[in-house]
């Protein structure tokens, strides 16, 4: 894992001091709430429906046990005993008091954490594949570039007041687990024909009210040029992005209005200028310095197959089901990555209480080289577990209520906080997720339905990623009554696509029924090992629309 050097540590300390001064000015009445707002937002502090919410950055979703324990401490001491892991691999605390925020930031700084640029119209926390450094299909560990981008973008003097927020994601594998095509900039680590390391750069993706997939603006950007290239994209956007309408201010609108070819031409022209100047050349030594922090942990030499695990699976069906669903192959023989579902049946997606955070920290310290990941699907990962230890890990997770075997299944639902917390929301999200989860609780039925990604947003801002759900659910307000629009066919993976609305919006108490209807159509039409997404792509929307209209005519 990356560790702060004296420069990084000082930067975060000075930011805490600056923000503490801003809070003091606010509490003393020297700043109005209006004036304080942009300042607090730059540090991840929102004013929600009921209270302040603090969003803490977890860069590229990587945490140590010590950091996770500190998050548990903060949840206990300053919140109501829990935290909420988000689709941007961050954690949110929903109930901090304003006067406590400086102390929370101090506590975070002690473990090399912060809330810098988790909000505001700046370059936000960088996200990456949660299996980074462990996945067998990886070309390059995406955390190295992500950390380089984190530093370059931190307190960027030119790009801290952009037209709108700006999100960058990096994948190190051809199989995209970082959803790069729906980010403002998406980066894939690649190799060219000569075997040299470089990056394919996409720009202009996003969700919200105008969902768009990003276009490629750089086929192969060499490693030492990557920051210069990113700066070129940022400058074109800062200068030309729309500022007259916040709903049209994201880079996706600029790319759409200019056209992908013209955007690429402008980026290339700007890149040539920056490159000629040379100031942003990334030194090889700096890449190597950061790379060294992400060196593989001391893996043991193990057989690929674990007899201990095999015996445990044979005698314990629940464990076998967990292994079948929650284990991801590791690049080192004898190891596996373990996904920890934060989607217990009927639970709140992404929530974990302090005791669970401590339990995960303990298990990671003992069995996963002290490492934990947060996924953009609101789950956790223990990246490096010996297959021989899987049974013990499963038992420890079970004891903490964290062994739900549903990764990628119908109950592994993404949901935004919705109207229960958020002052932008039109409708609740959490209760809808709970209804669906309860309805499809039967594990055998879940397994029969296979990979099925349901994503729920409580408003058009799409924090719950509904556009890229195999089934997407969007909460809307119709004359004061919560309704839900259902879409099918979205994907955030390497086969990225945006879902299409199928049928009339339904009321909250009919959503689970509508999902039943969709699943029935899928089961009637599926062939071979097709997922719902595959069947939908093959047969089209019509059969689903017909049944939904028939079932939900009012």
């Amino acid at each position: 894992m990356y560790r702060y050097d004296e420069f990084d540590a000082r930067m975060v300390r000075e930011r805490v001091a600056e923000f503490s001064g801003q809070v003091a000015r606010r509490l003393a009445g020297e700043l109005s709430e209006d004036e304080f707002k942009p300042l607090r937002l730059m540090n991840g502090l929102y004013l929600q429906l009921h209270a302040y919410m603090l969003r803490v950055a977890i860069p590229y979703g990587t945490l140590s046990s010590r950091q996770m324990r500190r998050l548990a401490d903060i949840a206990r001491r300053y919140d109501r005993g829990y935290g909420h892991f988000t689709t941007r691999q961050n954690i949110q605390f929903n109930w901090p008091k304003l006067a406590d925020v400086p102390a929370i930031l101090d506590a975070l700084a002690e473990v090399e954490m912060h809330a810098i640029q988790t909000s505001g119209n700046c370059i936000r926390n960088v996200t990456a594949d949660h299996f980074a450094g462990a996945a067998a299909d990886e070309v390059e560990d995406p955390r190295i570039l992500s950390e380089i981008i984190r530093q370059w973008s931190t307190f960027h003097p030119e790009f801290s007041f952009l037209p709108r927020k700006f999100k960058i994601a990096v994948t190190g594998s051809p199989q995209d687990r970082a959803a790069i095509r729906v980010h403002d900039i998406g980066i894939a680590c690649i190799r060219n024909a000569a075997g040299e390391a470089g990056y394919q750069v996409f720009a202009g993706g996003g969700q919200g009210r105008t969902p768009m997939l990003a276009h490629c603006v750089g086929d192969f950007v060499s490693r030492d040029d990557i920051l210069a290239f990113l700066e070129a994209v940022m400058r074109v956007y800062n200068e030309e992005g729309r500022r007259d309408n916040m709903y049209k201010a994201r880079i996706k609108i600029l790319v759409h209005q200019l056209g992908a070819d013209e955007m690429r031409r402008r980026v290339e022209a700007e890149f040539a200028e920056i490159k000629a100047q040379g100031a942003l050349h990334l030194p090889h030594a700096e890449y190597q310095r950061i790379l060294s922090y992400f060196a593989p942990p001391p893996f043991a030499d193990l057989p690929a197959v674990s007899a201990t695990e095999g015996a445990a699976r044979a005698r314990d069906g629940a464990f076998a089901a967990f292994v079948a669903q929650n284990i991801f192959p590791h690049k080192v023989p004898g190891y596996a990555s373990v996904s920890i579902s934060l989607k217990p049946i009927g639970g709140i997606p992404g929530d974990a209480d302090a005791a669970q955070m401590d339990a995960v920290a303990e298990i990671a310290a003992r069995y996963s080289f002290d490492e934990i990941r947060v996924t953009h699907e609101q789950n956790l990962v223990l990246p490096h577990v010996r297959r021989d230890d899987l049974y013990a890990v499963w038992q420890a997770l079970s004891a903490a209520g964290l062994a739900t075997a549903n990764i990628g299944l119908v109950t592994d639902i993404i949901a935004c906080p919705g109207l229960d917390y958020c002052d932008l929301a039109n409708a609740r999200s959490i209760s809808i997720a709970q209804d669906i989860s309860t309805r499809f609780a039967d594990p055998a039925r879940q397994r029969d339905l296979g990979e099925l990604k349901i994503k729920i947003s409580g408003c058009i801002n799409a924090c719950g990623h509904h556009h890229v759900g195999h089934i997407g659910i969007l909460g809307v307000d119709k004359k004061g009554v919560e309704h839900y629009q259902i879409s099918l066919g979205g994907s955030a993976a390497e086969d990225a696509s945006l879902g299409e609305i199928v049928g009339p919006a339904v009321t909250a108490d009919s959503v689970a029924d509508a999902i039943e209807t969709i699943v029935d159509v899928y089961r009637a039409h599926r062939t071979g090992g097709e997922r719902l997404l595959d069947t939908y792509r093959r047969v089209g929307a019509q059969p689903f629309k017909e049944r939904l209209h028939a079932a939900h005519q009012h």
Partner: protein
Amino acid sequence: MPPISISTRAPGAFEDVADDAPLPVAGAVIVSARRLAAERDGVFARNDAVGVVLESHESPMQLPPEDLQRLSLVVLMFPKFRDGRGFSWARMLRTRLGFRGEIRARGHFLRDQIFFMARCGIDSLEGDLRITAEAVSDALATFTHVYQPAADGRRSVVLARHG
């Protein structure tokens, strides 16, 4: 109120001249980009310093290079603090166009933006009455180190790490 300096350069004394007002007989003036383009010979013939105001949508890249060479001041408008185009314009003026005169920010901004403004090459501020010299010196000392090159010549952390 007089402009406040945020760099080592002392702000110059200029008089703003509206597009429809005659140029004064003597003294340094600030004119709009439109007037400069229309009356460049007359404006530069006065033998006094000339400044130009650029609205936030006006790129300094559009100024004819021979005009830029003769300008003593570029005023960048910040219509509201959220409009961050001026940061790019200032940096372009310094690092790409080689402008060595004064760059002044005018309009609406926060004292919490001063650190960034100085890094992008802005010398002086005209706007918020509450920004005192003390607030400026506090703001400029916010961060000891910087993570990226800008227009102020400061060595980034990356270069400091690797000598």
